[in-house]
């Protein structure tokens, strides 16, 4: 049910970003970019604790009038950002978590592919299909 899904690499450049086409893509790109600051903040806040103890799911990063932004960071500092529509309030925390879980697992699959060089943009069809499934649900 996301309107935008983004995967950002450790160095904070996007590996994959996709929005529901009807929306203004640039706006989402910008949103994701600004949300990175919030992610950093949250990550550093918990940074004192050992990485193991750090929770991967960051939760709601910040809400705007139109949508909410959720974040998730992996142990390798790869960030997933999901933007959902505010009007879609039926989304529960669980669902967001499960969405991140799916993202993470399919991202792992992409990583496992020996033909994928870390740092490349993600062009895997299966990853695309999983993301589409997530986005189609909502809209």
């Amino acid at each position, binding site marked *: 049910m996301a309107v935008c899904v983004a995967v950002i690499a450790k160095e904070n450049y996007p590996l994959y970003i996709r929005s529901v086409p009807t929306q203004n893509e640039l706006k989402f790109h910008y949103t994701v970019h600004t949300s990175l600051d919030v992610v950093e903040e949250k990550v550093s806040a918990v940074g004192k604790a050992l990485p193991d103890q750090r929770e*991967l799911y960051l939760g709601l990063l910040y809400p705007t009038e139109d949508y909410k932004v959720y974040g998730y960071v992996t142990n*390798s500092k790869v960030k997933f950002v999901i933007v959902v529509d505010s009007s879609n309030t039926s989304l529960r*925390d669980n669902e967001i978590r499960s969405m991140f*879980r799916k993202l993470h*697992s399919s991202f*792992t699959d992409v990583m*496992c592919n*020996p*033909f994928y060089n870390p740092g490349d943009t993600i062009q895997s069809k299966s990853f695309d299909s999983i993301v589409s499934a997530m986005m189609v649900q909502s809209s």
Partner: protein
Amino acid sequence: MESLTLSDVEQKYYSDLFVYCDVDNTKKVASNGKVLDLFRAAQLSNDVVLQITELCGATRLGHFGRSQFYIALKLIALAQSGLPLRVESLNSVKDLPLPRFVVGKNEQESRHTAMYPDTENQGPYSSVIPRPPGRVPAKKLSTHEVIQPCVSAVEPQPDTTSPVVSPHQSPPTSPHAWRKHKRQASGGAVDRPPAVAGAAWPPFREAQPAGDGMWASHSPPPVQESWVSFTDTPPSSTLPAVHPSSAQESTTVRTVASAATTNEIQRQASGYEDPWKITDEQRQYYINQFKTIQPDLTGFIPGSAAKEFFTKSKLPILELSHIWELSDFDKDGALTLDEFCAAFHLVVARKNGYDLPEKLPESLMPKLIDLDDSAGVPESAPEVGFSSSPVEVTPNKSPSMPSLNQNWPELNQSNEDTAIVHPVPIRMTPSKIHMQEMELKRTASDHTHPTSPLMAKPPELSEEKKLAAIKFPGSTVGDGYSSSDSFTSDQEPISSAVTRQRSHSGTSPEGLKAVAPPPPPPRPHASHSRSSSLDMNRNFTAVAAGTQQQAGVVAFPPAVPPRPLPTQTSVPHGHRPVDGDGLPAHSSTSPQQMPEQPNFADFSQFQVFAVEQPVDDGDTQQDGGQVEKGVDAAGAVRATKNDTQAEERTPATVNSAKGSTPLAPPPKPVRRRLKSEDELRPDVEDHPQKSSVVPGVLATQASIPRSIGKDKKAIQASIRRNKETNTVLARLNSELQQQLKDLLEERISLEVQLEQLRPFSHL
């Protein structure tokens, strides 16, 4: 005639055809008869044939000159490709497959004759149609293969080639089938540009039967690419191998080539069956390849090794990546023999022009064919390894995965638990924490000691309520009301008071299940308002806290005392939309009610009302709860209004109305709160009754088994939605009210100015 540009391949092909038709050996003109036969053999309708002849100018000339013939052939190719016949497209269409002509022979025969030189094979054909050059290599291959494969009796090529060919044994049909296919344009693979076939063919050229003279001329392989690259030997390696050289090329090259051919053949054959089936020869070949990388057939090929291997095939990385995704069934980053075979097969197919499937085909799924290590792999669609072969998968998963795995179940459980335990979702807005606690307590108590907690509250409530009531006048009530949606702090106290009253009334009369002061069940949703009912009391001074919450809360308290206040100012505008019908009536009275507010401390009324329609309110409240958000303001208004007048007046009506409203599943007191919003809209009077209803509802809630949780969830979802709309409407209301206020102020100022100016006007 239109000038025609032909590619080399086409040139050769056409010249061959021309020669074929040039029965009289004039080198200039092809006999009409032959040409027409040929055209008919192209499996085009007569109309098309006529059109073609016309277009190429033969009708004009009366005969088929070379150029006409060529043009005609090109048009045939166009027609066979389904493109419209246009003279312009002769030169514009790129990558047009060569025209195909059907041979009368049936496949079976051809299969068995594949071994023989082309000429021989063609013998059986009704007509000898020059093979498209591109096919030549394939043909050679086929002959090659046919030779080798046990199938046909044709004397095997020099044994040197046998090792290579062995894999080709794959369907002996392939060679023949090949030809046939090509002729008949059957199987999608046939359409592949001849170039593709060229790749591996060269090596086999030498094996070509002597009779293949005609084809020999076409031997120059259109394309040298292909497998050959597997061995890292540049395509050139194939060339030398090509001709005369003995078949002794490096085994790898051979194998590669043979693999290619095998694949071609396979491809051909597969046109009839499952295109993804791996033949035994192919499989054997793959296994051999596997051994070169990993001697242990039950072991894995690590990803990096596989990457190198498949990179040799010169497919684009993206496609290789896709192939990997498809074939690495257990997603462990390594290939078992089956996975490797599948991957290899896909590569072969891709090289031969098949498009990669989206999902791994059935026949390629790791199965127990040769080895048992794939046994554990389920045949379900490729999925993340969690469910698939557990042994193989988990250990190999990326490091983060295990931790993830651990985390998730925990998360799930935790969420599940919380979800299950409480009918009310424990979504909490910050200010709702209290509410949730209340909720928990309440729900718990509902089932256990419904009344006890409630009873404890009323006294507090009453006092607080009074405070709140008193406060109202003090605070800018008007503000609060004006922004029914704005949930100013003013409203909070009001709402809180209201809620308290409600709960109060609810509890006192009923003493039932607990609905106890409907401390807004932590129905977190945006509409915090409800949940904070009890908190409101505490937040009195806080004020600023979720105004909405308070509004919502206000709605609940049956007393709805604050009602009058809110309605006073903004009432007419703001509340109407939100509150619906009930408000207008109250608004008018609101000013009067203001002073009466303190009256709502009079809980006796509530009790009365509460008793009246316990059930109704409970139900309706639940619905109202859903609407919470928008209702907040309304709730506040109502609360004020209701406290005195409303209660008395329409409680009955309201309650009844409410009762009729869909009874949200007992869940939660939150429902009640939500309902209050709903109620706010439809009717104002409900409040007093709400309180009574609430207890009833709670009672029902308690009675309803948790099993209805699911329904609750659905209802909750709908409640949320309603809340959303409520909030939106509430916002709208507040905005409108704000505007109204502004306008009024302007008006007042203007009037004042007017007054001032009036005396002057007389002057």
